[in-house]
């Protein structure tokens, strides 16, 4: 009885939170609503990719393909069949479309999952990447769905609540999978495929299931994106989107749901924040090229010194912290020194770069820095839990994670 009441309460809280969110941002500008929606969609995408990459250990880098399948499939259905069918309630229709998108993407995920039975590691990575490209190029060459010009999805349906509901469902499914016995085979396949097979785990089934669930959520996210934006093009789902989702998973910590959520929220918000920055004249902020390179130099210095401290110094924790701070200070100093010298090069100093063009550079640098300094990601394999929070404040005790790898 207690079990079910807790379940019921959490479902109600989730629904309530979504409705509350809708009420909060419902009157905000389109631009602000879009940011909230994008954050929600990217959380869904990264958590679902995390299920494939982090939890099951199948290195897939073509997640945008499933996103695209969901978006195009449902966009096409809405455009052509919405006016011809009996459900005239847009909300019900979009919910139906979420399921359709999920099923469509799951079929695609099943097809991609099949090679994963024979391929591992980098081979699988390149096959998933290739699959993503095949889908994108095929869509680009179908005039019936707009080709490379893109497709209008009418009628639009802009609902913040649905997006976040999907994100919450995705998180809940992945978390519950990990918390129950159903999830253990996923972890065991990641750790050692051969050993788990020897222990009676049906490796084939686990891998395909991971791809099915992961791609289904991406497909549902695609359906919501199509109906929110009202316009989709193949470039919305390019290789760079796949890499952005991958960056989120890696930054948060492969295998950590908390990490994926955190990183997705951060990296989805960051470009919008950058775009919103205005210069003194009210135009989008322009920064001199010399400053961009100077920042890169600073990051390089910081990373090199930090790695030096990390690997060479094994002493008092406090002194180590001081050394890290010193490294940081040196990096900041080197930024100004580098800027001083770079400003003498006319190509660098005269080049003005709009700040939102720096977005992908920031993603790339984030990927490299995280790999060099903390390959396990910010949260590593830890999850957020109250006991973990309590553990942080207790001295002498190692915080233990809910799911340890």
């Amino acid at each position, binding site marked *: 009885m207690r079990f079910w009441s807790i379940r019921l309460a959490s479902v109600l809280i989730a629904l309530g939170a979504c409705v509350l969110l809708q009420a909060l941002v419902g009157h905000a500008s389109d631009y602000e609503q879009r940011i909230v929606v994008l954050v929600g969609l990217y959380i869904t995408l990264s958590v679902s990719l995390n299920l494939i990459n982090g939890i099951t250990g199948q*290195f897939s*880098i073509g997640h945008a393909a499933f996103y695209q399948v969901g978006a195009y499939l449902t966009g096409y259905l809405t455009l052509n069949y919405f006016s011809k069918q009996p459900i005239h309630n847009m909300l019900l229709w979009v919910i139906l479309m979420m399921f359709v998108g999920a099923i469509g993407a799951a079929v695609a995920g099943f097809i991609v999952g099949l*090679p994963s039975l*024979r*391929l591992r*590691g*980098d*081979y699988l*990575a*390149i*096959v998933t*990447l*290739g*699959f993503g*490209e*095949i889908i994108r*190029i*095929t869509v*680009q*060459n179908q005039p019936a769905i707009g080709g490379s010009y893109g497709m209008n999805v009418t009628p639009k349906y802009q609902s913040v609540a649905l997006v976040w509901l999907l994100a919450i469902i995705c998180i809940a499914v992945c978390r519950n999978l990990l918390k129950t016995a159903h999830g253990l085979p996923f972890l065991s396949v990641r750790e050692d*495929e*051969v*050993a788990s097979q*020897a222990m009676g785990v049906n490796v084939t089934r686990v891998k395909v299931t991971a791809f099915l669930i992961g791609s289904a959520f991406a497909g549902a996210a695609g359906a919501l994106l199509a109906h929110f934006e009202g316009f989709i093009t193949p470039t919305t789902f390019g290789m*760079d989107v796949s*890499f952005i989702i*991958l960056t989120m998973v*890696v930054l948060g910590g*492969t295998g950590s749901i908390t990490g994926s959520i955190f990183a997705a929220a951060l990296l989805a918000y960051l470009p919008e924040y950058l775009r919103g920055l205005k210069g003194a004249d009210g135009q989008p902020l322009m920064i001199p*090229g010399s400053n*961009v390179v100077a920042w*890169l130099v600073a990051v*390089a210095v910081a990373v090199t010194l930090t*790695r030096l401290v990390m690997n060479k110094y094994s002493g008092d924790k406090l002194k180590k912290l001081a050394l890290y701070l010193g490294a940081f200070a040196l990096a900041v100093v080197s930024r100004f020194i580098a800027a001083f010298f770079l400003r003498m090069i006319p*190509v*660098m100093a005269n*080049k003005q*770069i709009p700040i939102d*063009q*720096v977005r*992908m*550079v920031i*993603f*790339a*640098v*984030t*990927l*490299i820095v995280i*790999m*060099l300094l903390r*390959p396990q990601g910010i949260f590593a394999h830890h999850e957020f839990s109250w006991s973990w929070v309590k553990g942080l404040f207790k001295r002498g005790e190692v915080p233990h994670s809910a799911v340890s790898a």
Partner: protein
Amino acid sequence: MTLALHLVAGVDFNTLPQQLVNGLLLGAIYALIALGYTMVYGVLRLINFAHGEVYMLGAYVALFVSYFMGFRPDATHPPQATILNLVIMLLASMVVCSIVGVCIERFAYRPMRSHSRIASLITAIGVSLLLQYGGALFLPNSPPPSISESVNPFHGQSKEFTLKGPSQDLVMLVEKAKPAKDQAQAAYQGWLTSHPNADIYNLPADGQALKEAQQSSTDIFNDAEHKVEAGGVHLIIQTGQAVMLVSTVVLMGILTYMVLFTRAGRAMRAVSHDFDSAALMGINVNNIVTFTFVLGSSLAGAGAMMTATFLGTPLTTFYGLAPGVKAFVAAVLGGIGNIPGAVLGGLLMGMAENMVVWAGYSNYRDAVAFLVLIIVLLFKPGGLMGSSKVEKV
């Protein structure tokens, strides 16, 4: 049935040899890039995702060197192009690419060597994105510049081969049409000289008849000649492309010599066979990895210089993305880590791509690489010439 008809609709067998030769050329370049992927994978077990970006930088180096030598597109009097200019561009590309490749290895891949392979793969993706998007901030890319044709001493030179003449009937048709045309032309010209004041747009009846006869016989002749031209199987090879193919083969020969017959090459093969044991046998593994990156990156630089110069493709910082991915696919197709396999895979890839273009599906030329790869990997996970190892505990 309709599908089959649709599939062969755009196929013209007379253009097949030309497409095969184009495929060979493209395949040779893919092979050159694929060698870099395969050698690095053989030594480090790492997919060097940034290899395509090294290739892109090589093309830009060639562009800047050609600018420096005065071959700007807007130059009114560019200097006389010689082979020496091309050699300078080639060497500059190769040297700069080697330096870039070695730096990437030293600062991004070496620190990751003790970590998992996926971690290095993600670093490689990061480096690749950094070069693409970071380069886009500083390198000229809109409008995309391309290397001026004036730097190519072989520009416009080509040699045409006739593999198969047109059918005898068509030749007969031309031979028959020619005297009729000549006759009608002579008659008309004769009439014109005898009537010097005639207005050719408003001729009297007899002149008009002669003019029409001349026009119609000329039309018949031209039509027949056109049919003869289209009926034969011709092959046009541009001198620049031939030079490109020969240089590629020479570079591959040098590489094979280095890998098979030098000390460094032997050490490289040893490291590729077993990294740790090679280190125990006294091989300086780091030097060998650097050597590998020098070889691979300079080949990419050479390939980039040649494609950018002889094919004149406009440069953007995404110039290396498609060739890089396809060359990687070629390397995997041939069996990654296997040098002859990379060449075979590259040639196959180039051929497959041009076959798709030949069949009238040029929009799908970028997708076919992956399709071939997926099919091959499903049936032969180790690639065509690679060995597929079954993992054991």
